[in-house]
């Protein structure tokens, strides 16, 4: 039955190597944070920054956010590591994400593309990293 579900639900399929709007948004916010001197960010911090940037009322869902972060890491646009336990100060340790050089480049392209075109296509990621 699983193979017929896409027909029923009509899930849009991603072209290999392209970014979804949410992934582009994550890169944009990550670049903004980097420019404001915050090189690393964590999941909730990112969701909060995205909410503020888009003036939305709700935070991005857990599943959607972490799946997108995982994809960006697979593409080589983000790297991640666990926060030091000492820095966590008793709370659950955070997974800290950081834009890679390639990620920053793609994010910059996205931002400049936004300025140039009202309607733009998602940037293609260099093949081989996906």
């Amino acid at each position, binding site marked *: 039955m699983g193979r017929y579900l896409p027909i029923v639900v009509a899930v849009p399929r991603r072209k290999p190597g392209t970014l979804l709007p949410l992934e582009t948004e994550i890169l944009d916010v990550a670049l903004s944070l980097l420019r404001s001197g915050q090189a690393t960010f*964590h*999941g*909730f911090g990112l969701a909060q920054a995205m909410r503020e940037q888009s003036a939305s009322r*709700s935070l991005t*869902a*857990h*599943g959607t956010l*972490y*799946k997108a972060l995982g994809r960006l890491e697979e593409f080589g646009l983000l790297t991640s590591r666990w926060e030091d336990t000492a820095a966590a100060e008793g709370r*659950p340790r955070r997974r800290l994400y950081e834009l890679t050089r390639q990620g920053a480049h793609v994010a910059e392209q996205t931002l400049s593309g936004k300025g140039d075109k009202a309607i733009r296509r998602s940037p293609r990621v260099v093949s081989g990293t996906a």
Partner: protein
Amino acid sequence: MTPERMAELVARWVRFYTRGLPTAIARRRVEEISSDLHDHIAHERARGTCDRRIAFSVISRMVRGLAADSAWRSQHAKPIAAQTSTPGQALKARKTTYRSALGVALGTAFILLLPLVAMQFTDEVVWDLADFAVAGVLLFGAGLTYVLIARKAGNVAYRVAVGVAVAAALLLLWLMGAVGVIGEEGDHVDFMYFGVLAVGIIGAVIARFRPDGMARALLATALAQGLVAVIALIAGKHQSPISSVFEIVALNGFFVALFTGSARLFRHAGRQQPPRAQGRTVRR
């Protein structure tokens, strides 16, 4: 509804959908969401948001992400499935499934032929198209459910347990549709039996069809069945000219016995099963 309770619910969901995945992947997701939930609640409380609103926000984030969670799980579960079976084995398993489904379809068609033939010789049997359709769906659905679940079993007890549970569910649905279990045909009190079957189905999914979990799911189903009888008696359904106390107790007792019997068989199957390999899955 406190934010902490909602966070616990989300954590349970995360533990559920990461079960059976490689330890590193599962642990990362569990810890990451745990950290997110902590930060979310702390941030909102610092902003002075009321607890009810925070709780709603937490559960809303979980619900909106369910589809992505399922997709994420499938993505990480595929490599495990590929490791545990060779392409030849997978092809063989697929062929066996198609053959079984074809067998079930033929069996269903044969059973449906009986009333069709009987209608040619007697006026006692009068089935319309809807009757054939409902019967076909029920029989094919029950047969396919049995085939898909039982084919995973390595022992006879598990197969028999599945057979008893599926047969009981089929019989219950048939009775509900044909004559009604409690009161007259079409009495809304029968809708409670959908709840009984839902208990079994949800329990089986949570147990991932493992024998011990299935035993608990079937026991819960039997309890739910018994509860329906108690509710029917309290509601005074035994005063109906069609359903006496004896009929309500006997009919529901019969299904309680079937579900309990199936649970005992699952428990027996669980004892016969060799212990699972250590270290491959996340153990909590």
